[in-house]
Each structure stands twice: as C-alpha cells, then as structure tokens.
C-alpha cells in the first residue's frame, strides 16, 4: 500500500509518500511496525494524540482496519479555513 505523510509528519519522515509492504491489520499495527524500523519514524509517531489518520482518503481512527486498503495517510490536526 502507499503510505502518505503531510506537514511536519512529512518533514520528520523525510518523504511525502512511500510504498510499504506490510501484514499489519490495523493502523495501530502499521504504526508499531514503522516505529520499529528507523529513528525518523519513532520521531514522527512518538505522540499519537498529535496525529490524525486517513485510510483510503477517509478520516478514521487508529484502531481502523487497513486490510485491503490502498492508501494510508498520517498528518497533524488540520488547519484549513
């Protein structure tokens, strides 16, 4: 699946988008897997309360399933308007 990052999450991880091969079943599982990979993920995902997630471009929760998902995006709370 594609994993996308926006705003300071993108800056901490260093890429806007990457293809990730994973058996993770939920967003929480995916986060745990990414955090164990490299320090830059640990830095981005240290405080999950500061993050929001969208699965297939729909805002959702960290306990949401990602089975069959094409796209998961992580970002800080939105500041539109």
């Amino acid at each position: 699946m594609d994993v996308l990052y926006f705003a300071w999450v993108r800056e901490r991880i260093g890429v806007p988008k990457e293809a990730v091969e994973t058996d993770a079943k939920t967003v929480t599982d995916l986060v745990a897997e990414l955090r164990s990979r490299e320090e830059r993920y640990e830095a981005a995902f240290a405080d999950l309360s500061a993050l929001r997630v969208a699965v297939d471009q729909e805002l959702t929760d960290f306990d949401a399933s990602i089975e069959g998902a094409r796209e998961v995006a992580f970002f800080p709370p939105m500041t539109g308007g």
Partner: protein
Amino acid sequence: MKIAVQTEAFDLGAEASALAQGHRDMGAVVTFIGVVRDLAESDLDRMVIEHYPGMTLKAIQAIAEDAKSRWNLGDVLVIHRYGDLAPGEMIMMVGTVAPHRKDAFEAAEYLMDYLKSRAPFWKKEITSDGADWVAAKDEDEDALSRW
C-alpha cells in the same frame, strides 16, 4: 454547488455575483472570506498551505452536502487556495444562498467550522525567525460540538 481547490487568486466580486444571480426564490446570500493575517511575533513573510490532493475535494464535498441536508439552501460555494500566500491575500471563500438569512448565516458558519478542522489543509508560517506549522486550536475542535 461550486467547490474549487486552487493556487490562483479568485475574483471576489465575480464569485459573489455569480452566486447571487439566477434565483427568484432565494432571499439571502452570505459570503465569508478568509485572509492571511500577520499576527506572529515576528514579521510574517508568507504562509504556505499544503493539502492532500486526493482527499481535499471529497472532504469539502462531504461537508457541503452535510450543510445542504441541515439547512434549506439554494446553493453553496467553497473556494480554498493552497501554496504560497502573502499577508493580506484571500485564502478562501465560502458562500451560501438560502430563502432566509438564518439558514444562509448558520450554514456559512457550519462550513467554516468544518473546513477548519476536517478539510485536509495545513498552514505553515514563514517569518523572519524561521518556519513554523500552525497548531490546531482546541477551540476549533470544540466549535464542532455545537452542531
């Protein structure tokens, strides 16, 4: 219903006129314009607005549809810019058309509250001191609970 996500500036007069024209049964048109303001401690050079291209239009459409289901509206307009914006530039515009002003005003406020916290935009302020992402405010999230 017109929804646009764009880098270019928009023509406020032309957009407001287009929205207001062509109705015989609509007594109220409300428009709101968001403008880049320089309230930072250090001088704001510009604001950079990032968005999530695949999700933004869909998210705004869903918010606009919610507004249309809650209030009696003849039309809805949302324009939101992204990219580099200087202080004083118009960032976004919301417009509502309704038979009565109460629906037009309330729906416009609802659209603004939801666009602030549920449309995937992120603002970064570039000042003489450096660059900082604008943090979401608790009061913006709280504003959603009144609807």
